C-alpha cells in the first residue's frame, strides 16, 4: 500500500479528540524493583544510571518465592518472580509486564547426549503473550508504555536469575499541555510518503532503554513502517514524535 498522510490522519484525529493529553511524568526516586525485591543485586557499573534502571541478578534460593532446593531455575520460578514484580508495580501506579524466557536447550544441552541431526536448538519457554505495560494516571486513565523501557526482563542463568530493569519511578507533572499539531507527525513521515509500506501507529509513554538517562517521560506517537514492496529490500523504520507541548508553546499546537 502506498503510504499517504491519510493513513495516519484518522487515527491521530480520533485519538486527540477523545481526551486531553496525558501529563508528563517526571522521573523521581524511589526505585520500584529494589523496593519489590530486597534480594535483588544490582550489577556494579561506573556509569550513573536513572533510578530503576540497571542490570541485576538474584538468587532464587535466598528468597521466599521458591525454596524447593532445586539447583536450576525453572519456568515456575521465573513466573513466580514475574508475578511478584507485577504485584509490587501495581502499588506504584504501574502495570508491568515482566518479559522472561528460559533457554533450556541452550543452557542445558550437553554435547553427546542428543543425536538430533536438526540444528535448531528448539523453542524457548517464555512468558505468555507480550502485552503492554501501563502507567496508571491520577484521573484513572491507563496509558501504555510504547518505548523499549518501562519493563523488567528476567532470564534464567544456571542457578541464578539475571535481568534488566528500565522502570523509572515518576511523579505526575502538574503542568497543562496540549496535543501537538498533525504537522509534526507529517514532518516525520515526509521522507516516507509515497513508498510502499504498512504503517502501524501507537501512542503511549515512551521510556528509554535501561542504559539511557531520562528526566521526563513524554507521551509519544510511535509510527512503525514496514516496507511492502517485494522489488525492494525489506525495511522497517520506527519513528517517534513527542505528542504534547507545554501550554504557552504555540509553535506546534493542534
Amino acid at each position: 500500500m502506498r503510504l499517504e498522510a491519510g493513513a495516519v490522519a484518522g487515527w491521530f484525529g480520533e485519538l486527540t479528540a477523545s481526551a486531553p493529553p496525558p501529563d508528563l511524568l517526571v522521573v523521581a526516586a524511589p526505585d520500584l524493583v529494589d523496593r519489590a525485591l530486597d534480594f535483588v543485586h544490582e550489577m556494579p557499573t561506573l556509569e550513573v544510571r536513572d533510578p530503576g534502571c540497571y542490570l541485576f541478578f538474584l538468587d532464587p534460593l535466598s528468597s521466599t518465592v521458591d525454596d524447593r532446593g532445586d539447583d536450576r531455575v525453572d519456568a515456575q520460578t521465573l513466573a513466580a518472580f514475574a508475578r511478584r514484580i507485577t504485584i509490587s508495580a501495581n502499588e506504584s501506579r504501574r502495570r508491568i509486564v515482566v518479559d522472561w524466557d528460559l533457554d533450556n536447550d541452550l543452557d542445558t544441552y550437553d554435547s553427546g547426549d542428543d543425536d538430533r541431526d536438526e540444528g535448531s536448538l528448539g523453542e524457548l519457554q517464555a512468558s505468555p503473550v507480550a502485552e503492554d505495560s501501563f502507567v496508571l494516571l491520577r484521573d484513572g486513565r491507563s496509558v501504555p508504555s510504547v518505548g523499549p523501557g518501562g519493563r523488567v526482563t528476567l532470564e534464567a542463568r544456571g542457578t541464578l536469575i539475571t535481568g534488566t530493569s528500565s522502570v523509572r519511578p515518576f511523579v505526575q507533572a502538574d503542568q497543562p499541555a496540549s496535543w501537538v499539531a498533525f504537522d509534526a507527525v507529517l514532518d516525520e513521515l515526509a521522507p516516507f510518503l509515497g513508498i510502499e509500506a504498512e504503517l502501524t501507529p501507537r501512542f503511549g509513554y515512551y521510556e528509554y532503554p535501561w542504559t539511557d538517562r531520562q528526566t521526563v517521560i513524554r507521551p509519544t506517537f510511535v509510527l512503525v513502517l514496514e516496507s511492502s514492496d517485494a522489488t525492494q529490500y525489506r525495511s522497517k523504520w520506527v519513528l517517534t514524535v513527542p505528542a504534547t507541548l507545554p501550554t504557552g508553546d504555540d509553535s506546534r499546537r493542534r
Partner: protein
Amino acid sequence: MDVTVGWCSAFDPSWVATRLFWASRPPALCFYHLGQYLATVAVPTTGRAILDEDLGVGGLSPAADAAIAGSDLVYLSSHGRLDGNTYRFRLRTGEWTPTHAPPAGGPAVLVLDTCDLVTPAVTPKNTTWRQAGQWSPAIVLGFSGPASDGFDASKRGRMFAEHLATGLTYAKAWFRAIRDTQPPQQRDKGIAIGFGPTVIDARHTLRTASLTNPPTRTVADECAWQRR
C-alpha cells in the same frame, strides 16, 4: 582483539534501496562500548571502521577486504536480503555475498545487522550459510526477518557490548540486545547461527562462545541455530 565495524547508509540508485537513517549507530555504539570494556580489563584492542566509501561499487574495496580478513569480530550494518537461499549484503552500489568463497582468515564472529539473514520460513541449514568445506565464522548473528531502523532500536549495538561484558555468550548477548531496545509488540526476531565440522560442534560453539571463551574460525560443514 581486533574489531572492525562498518555501515552503508545511502544507496545508489536510491529507489532500489531506501536510505537507512541510523545504520551507523549499531556498529559504532558496539565498538565504542566494547572498546571501553576491553580497556578496563586491559585487553589490547584494535579497531577499524569501513564506511560507505569502502562498501562500494559492486564489491568490497581492498581496504575493506583486508580489514574484515584481519579481525576477530566484525559488525556491519546495511540492507540485506535472502536471494533464493543466498544472503546478500547491500553495498552502496551492488551487493556483497559473504558466503561466496570466504577466505581462511577472517572473523570468528560476524554480526550482520540487516534484514533477512534468513527469513522466518527458511532454516539456515538449507541456505548457503551451510556449505561443506567452506571457511566460515564460528558464529553469525543477525535477524530472521526485518531489522528495525530507529534511534532507540539502533542502541542494540551498545546493548550487545554491555551484555558481552557481563559474560554472556555471543548468542545470548545478541538476543538480549534486541530485547532491551524494542518493546515486545514490535520486536524484531534475532537469529544466531553457529558453525563447525559437525552439528555437535556447531551447537557447542553457539552455547559457549563468549568474550572469555573466544571462538575460532571454522568450516561451514554443519550449523546450529536459534531464533528469538
